[in-house]
């Protein structure tokens, strides 16, 4: 498949940070893009409904975390329907190769809108359910990146990274075992929860009980990423829980993900 670069290249690529009632992580996500040279704009889903904005004017789309519409009928479900209804061009946006990221609630919405795992037919083949622990949980996790994946968001990052998760409905489930095989084959599993020595282990290393420890998915082309962990919460080293132990002297690894997308648009 042809992957074309964003139509509107420029010094500061325009980043659409999507808001819906109950979106929480919009400001820090926008700040992360701003710090790496993006030009973020908070756009409400209502603006799409009122046809006030045009998706194709943006170079990047980010769907941040939160509890959209209170998550009252399942995490991200209503937002997913709204995206399908009012942002019809989003599939085209992905197909054109422009960067899209869904974080936490945004990942849940991408999955429930049938955008991830990505298929030509656009059918939904995965979903989320309550954490195995039965509780909302906040904790930092170790993640292993799929170095064979095409994902542009994670290019050049170390194979093992740390990010925080905070969710109650983060357990990814797939429609059938066949779909897992497909994800493996297409190198679409971008991130997995692992122990600090890189093993696929259970709770608390896998904080929610996701199938095959999946923490993030990408489309085979690698421009659309969904993940439960929060990269926008590790954009300075002082975000790390152990920075006072002086074992993490570098900038937060999450910022690199946003930088990758912005650089990709600039090149």
């Amino acid at each position, binding site marked *: 498949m042809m992957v074309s670069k964003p139509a509107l290249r420029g010094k500061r690529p325009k980043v659409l940070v999507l808001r819906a009632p109950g979106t*929480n992580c919009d400001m820090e996500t926008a700040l992360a893009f701003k*710090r790496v040279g993006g030009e973020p704009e908070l756009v409400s889903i*209502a603006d799409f409904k009122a046809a006030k904005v045009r998706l194709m004017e943006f170079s990047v789309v980010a769907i941040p975390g939160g509890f959209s519409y209170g998550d009252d009928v399942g995490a991200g479900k209503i937002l997913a329907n709204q995206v399908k209804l009012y942002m019809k061009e989003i599939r085209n946006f992905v197909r054109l190769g422009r960067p899209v990221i869904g974080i936490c609630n945004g990942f849940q919405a991408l999955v429930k809108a049938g955008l991830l795992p990505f298929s030509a037919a656009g059918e939904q083949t995965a979903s989320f359910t309550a954490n195995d622990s039965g509780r909302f949980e906040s904790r930092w996790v170790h993640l292993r990146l799929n170095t064979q994946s095409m994902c542009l968001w994670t290019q050049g990052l170390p194979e093992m990274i740390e990010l925080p998760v905070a969710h109650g409905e983060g357990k990814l489930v797939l429609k059938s075992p066949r779909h897992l095989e497909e994800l493996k084959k297409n190198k679409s599993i971008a991130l997995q929860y692992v122990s600090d020595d890189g093993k696929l282990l259970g709770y608390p290393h896998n904080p929610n009980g996701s199938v095959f420890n999946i923490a993030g998915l990408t489309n085979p082309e690698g421009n659309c990423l969904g993940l439960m962990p929060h990269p926008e919460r590790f954009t300075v080293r002082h975000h790390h829980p152990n920075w*006072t132990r002086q074992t993490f002297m570098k900038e937060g690894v999450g910022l690199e993900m946003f930088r990758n997308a912005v650089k990709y648009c600039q090149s």
Partner: protein
Amino acid sequence: MTECRAAPSDGGALRFTVLPPKELKELGDKLGWSLNSAELEAIRSYFKKVGREPTRGEVETIAQTWSEHCKHKTFNGPIRYSDGKKTQLIRSLFAETIVKATQGLSKPWCLSVFKDNAGIVSFGKGGRWALAVKVETHNHPCAVEPYGGAETGIGGVIRDVLGAGLGAKPVLNTDTFCLARPDYAGALPEGALHPVRTLRGVVAGVRDYGNRMGIPTAGGGLWFDDDYRLNPLVFCGTVGVLPTWAVRKEVKPGDLIVAVGGPTGRDGLHGATFSSATLEGESDRTAVQIGHPLNEKRVLDAMMIARDRKLYRAVTDCGAGGFSSAIGELAKDCGARVELSGAPVKCSDLEPWEIWLSEAQERMVLAVPRKSYAELEKLFHAEGTGCSILGEFTDSGRLVVTLKGAPVADLDMGFLHDGMPKVERRAVWTNGSKPKPRPCGRKSGAADRGRLGSILIRMLGHLNVCSREWVIRQYDYEVQAGTVIKPLQGLRHDGPGDACVIWPAAATGEWEDLSGFSVGHGLNPSYGRLDPYWMAMCCADEALRNLLCVGADISKAVFLDNFCWASPEVPEQLGGLVRAALGCHDAAKGYSVPFISGKDSLYNQSRDEKGRDLAIPGTVLITAMAPVQDITRSVTMDFKGPGNSLFLVGVTKDETGGSLLSQMESCGGEVPKPDPKAAIKAFKAVAGAISKKLVLSAHDLSEGGLGVAVAEMAFSGESGATIELDQVLTSPAMLPDETTLFSESPSRVLLEVSPKDDVALMRALKGVPARRIGSTTANPLIKVSGFDGSIVLETLLVDLKTAWQKTLPELLK
């Protein structure tokens, strides 16, 4: 729109002025006004002068405005206080203690104190930003319905901050719970909830509301005492950030009164609960308000945009009393004309006074210039929340309320706000009447080696010390990406941090400014059982040390007070409350830290299963907040590695009264007594050492004293420690090892310092009592040598940590 049910049709004029006093009091009690006879007479004479009968809406408005909840009669009224030696008249406890101390200090960075919905202080570099902070209690609702009570508790305090100045963006929530032990096995009266159910409910309430609002809950505490079993305490706090230009609000006559947020229903209507005398089986219908975080999030998001576009001139939240108190407050100095038909309602059969008084959640009232209204309405509707005109502010000095033109209330503002007769209460403080237990501090001996270790392990597993990870992890404590020092600290992110540090860069957008702030807490009702004065002092001291230990600038700290007490009509109870307030005054003066906001919750007592009055232990929560000038210099409490020096700052005295040791060993002693002048000098020296990057870790000594503090630092950092008790500065010079290890003398902190900085640290701490008492080790155990040099405690870190971690999970399995 639905019709909820037929409402009692007593909404019109009352036969108020002609009723005999006794019948009037009965009517008031029946309708749930909680007005005493003197207040009823004051209302009667007002309406006699006016020359007509009051409407139900008018009396309800006055009853709300004059309630203990809104007017704080006890704190603002005269008290004749006797402490056994002399009797004095306190004209206003609030004015003569807390306000007086703050006024005396007159700190320039306090931008708004006691006036607004929250205290406001300046923040960050360049004076462009300010922080609004408020801590509220929601005790009575949480006793009835823990989940809903906690939800609306946190929802309410968020609105307080949203209604401070022209509205602050919340960046931190805190929660503190005082409950009976989850394994309480005693009897409970009918209808009382078991403490496990209360604990699960209040945690879930704070979690579901706070997480959905996108505000990190990253501070607070838990305290267990069985005397809270009928009256659990739930403290909810919020800190918000606002631009300095938005600190002031003003109302101009002609401005529109605009209600934004959710519709109005019959929820949280105090009068209605009593009207159920004629409607059996519906008494719980309106007891607790219904929380809806998504609605509040919509209001928050719309308000922040409207504020920055300057579409309104003033704002306040709808809390107790609903529209009546919100509009009454805003119109205090001018007047208002309200037409209730503008209010969106949940059901069509609300009585006019019910609309006026409803405590339906998620509503704010704004003062909006006429020319801005259209834009404002569009904005709120775009966010999917309500916006409607309720009337206008006037210069009449009157509050006039109508529904479709028919009068609901027409009151003089002066009478409404200042017409309440003052009641003089009596307070008595008696000390020393309680039997004295065996003094703590057994002599050391060969057998102590096992004994002190076993005490330490039991202390770490004690409910008031043990790990709160089960609670903390349910909160999204990192949303907004500003929690740079987290509530859980250490190598494995599970140690007990002293306080969080928040860097509100996402809210301000100024990521190059490394200014942050920290919030700490002090609460210890066990000391209060001995003397509420010293309890207040100790709480202030501990809250400050929480801040000190993460590297905050305590010279710019502020305090908030939350008093929870039993009935102030019992002179002995009120005596304790006066003692606590005097303690707050002296703490503020002594530490040079002003109070900027506070709240009291009284009448926390209920009939137990045998029909006796069970009062809560008098409780003060002191919340302290201070700026962190540079978040990259913050410190955590976990040991950073082996071979470092351990310095204990402060003097250890024979102060075991109310201590954890006294509870575990059934012994007693003197209640801890801080010396604020000496303490603040030491704190400033420690702060100086931290800012010079001399300190690797810092932890305050609180429940369980030195023993618990060393253990927590050690297992959090996975380094062992050796401690030499003969090096500890004590007064008198010789104390039993048990006392040195577990005394709870205030104002002490333990510091870990690289040995190459030993000299520099001692130089920084010149003139301050401080001594090197040991070092960190690679051996994973704690080894303590006693006064005579023999080993008195030797325990593996894994045993200490296991004991500390297992308590709550086992009880809440």
